[in-house]
């Protein structure tokens, strides 16, 4: 079995028969077979930009933080900043 890290809390496992599985390193929850499309299997939510600190207000409320995390244990995979037309509630 070969393991490749895709991030701090996510990895890809290839077994002896060549089958690939992307999984959470914290709880082992499966996230599909593709090293690029695992994001479709992750859980996500959008947070106001201020979630990253008070100085983010200089972005003018036009962005949010998108977080991708494990649907099973909540381990965080990615935090991205994205422009939105409508501010999240």
């Amino acid at each position, binding site marked *: 079995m070969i393991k490749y890290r895709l991030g*701090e*809390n996510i990895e890809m496992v290839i077994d002896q028969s060549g089958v690939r599985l992307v999984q959470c390193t914290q709880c082992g929850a499966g996230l599909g077979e593709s090293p690029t499309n695992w994001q479709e299997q992750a859980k*996500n939510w959008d947070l106001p930009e201020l*979630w*990253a600190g*008070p100085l983010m207000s200089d972005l003018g409320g*036009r962005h949010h933080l998108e977080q991708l995390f494990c649907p099973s244990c909540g381990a*965080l995979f990615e935090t991205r900043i994205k*422009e939105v037309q409508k501010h999240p509630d």
Partner: protein
Amino acid sequence: MTTATKTIDPITFEILSHRLHEVTKEMATTLERVGGTVNTTQMQDYMAALYTPSGDILSAGDFAGWHVACAGFAVKHIIKAFAGEINPDDVFLLNDPYVAAIHQSDVYIISPIHHTSGLVGWSATFVHVMDIGAMSPGGNSPGATEIVHEGVRIPGIKLIDRGKLRQDVFNAITNMTRQPTMVGLDLKCELAANNVAKARVQELCKCYGLDLIKSASLQLIRQSEEVLRRRIQEIPDGIWTQCAEIEADKKYKVNLTLRKEKDRFYFDFTGTDDQARVGINLPYHATFGACCEAILTSLGYDIPKNQGTFAVLEVIAPEGCLVNVRYPGPVSLSTTSGGAIAKFLATSVVTRCLATSEKWRIEAMSQTLGGRFARHAGVNQYGNYYVSTLQEARGSGATSYRDGVDSGRGHSSCHNVEWVERNFPILYLFRRQAQDSGGPGKYRGGVGTEVGWIVHEAPEKEIRIIGLGVVGRGNSGQGLFGGYPGAPSILVHYQQTQVKSLLQRHVLPMNVEGWGGVPRAIPYEDYILSDEDVYYVRTSCGGGYGDPLERQGTMVERDIRNGTVSKITARDVYGVILKEDGSLNLEATEVHRTALMAKRQASVNPEHQRAM
């Protein structure tokens, strides 16, 4: 490249390798001691390197990889353009971005080094000269829409002919700038550094013999390439993509795909937007250099930088796109805008590539963009016209094992405030670390700096400011693997403030809120800062690494004590609760973090839930 194969013992090889490295360091020291501008003497915006007789990079010291690569293009161009006319003690000058420079302000001085038997190598330096006769003082011209607006552009000229300075050429060049004396000093510090290189390399040839030097050079280049290829081979093959935006007259997108295959990297910028009307564009050689730098800073930081380390990559950038500008596209803003984006993307994809390797993932680091800074020009308190630069310290990105450096990052250093106040009509209100500016994470991004200053004792009651850097939301640290972004970098013009009247009443206005006046965010712009205005900048700040809820409570406690993180951010973002005496409340922290994690797992906001 030389074909000499003289056997060399390991000890002599190490001595020669280090001697060559030390020559480049001595060249740098010479630049600083002979130069006179803030850029050269305090910010270290320069490069010094040695090249083989054929123009391959031999020793590039500790300098930024992309300038070393570009100077390599410059040396090879001079060899070709002046074939048959290269004599001992000649010196050449080149600053054409359509040949090798990144923008005209970066002036390369290139010298052949001869020993008894002929040409034995080349030395090259660049400094960012303080003016180049462009539309705006300092060379970076936000109003330029083609290269001819951006100042003196020389594709190669002989500045010293067989040891004799061509004074007419020297005068012609400096006379086309706003500061002939200072630019002359810039050029002379480069000449001095190249003289040092020539003397030291000639000493080496005399001491060890030319054949041994040639063998050591060949071996040095081969060794660096072999070590780097071996390291690349250790990383799993794969493909990584990332894109970024930069705002100028409109938003421009830069795309990068990294393909790692066996022992080579392929950087492909296909899909990047067409070149811009303003000078944020990057010449191809600079894009190539940016990718080289990404590899060297992550996988090759301990390897002697030379042609071998530049042989492991291929860079694809369609002609006419933002990172491979087509003539006559402008480039004067490029180093700190398009260049910053290219370096950010290259280091980002390399970092994600490294993360897949158990051996190399420790080098993974969240990447930081250049942020905002400015040049300034006008008449100083002594009645003399001047042009200069202000660049404050940035926060660096967090890595897989430690926090980013607080107010400690930048390819160049920041200037001394007292020196600046003594020489220019400027009075600082404050220069300090910006609280809560580092991106939260298991390891926190380094906090940036915020600065406020006013025009002081300016005879004309105003000076000019030229706003540079990266404009847009993504101009600061980007988090990695769950880490949050750093605070955005901003450049703000506060107009018609009450600051001077407050100072007259002995009130030191330390907070932006107390200034009054009208704030205006500055894009790429050449504008007037008047007697009643305030210049404010917050630099880029490091992105975080990993989940902030995994950060050790004691580290957050220390952050609060140091003033880098506020108590509110500690509670809301890191989930850390303090006792009344300021020490960590471990139990309350665990309870609070569990509650925050439960909120995340419950995904309270189904409206924004992606389809599963």
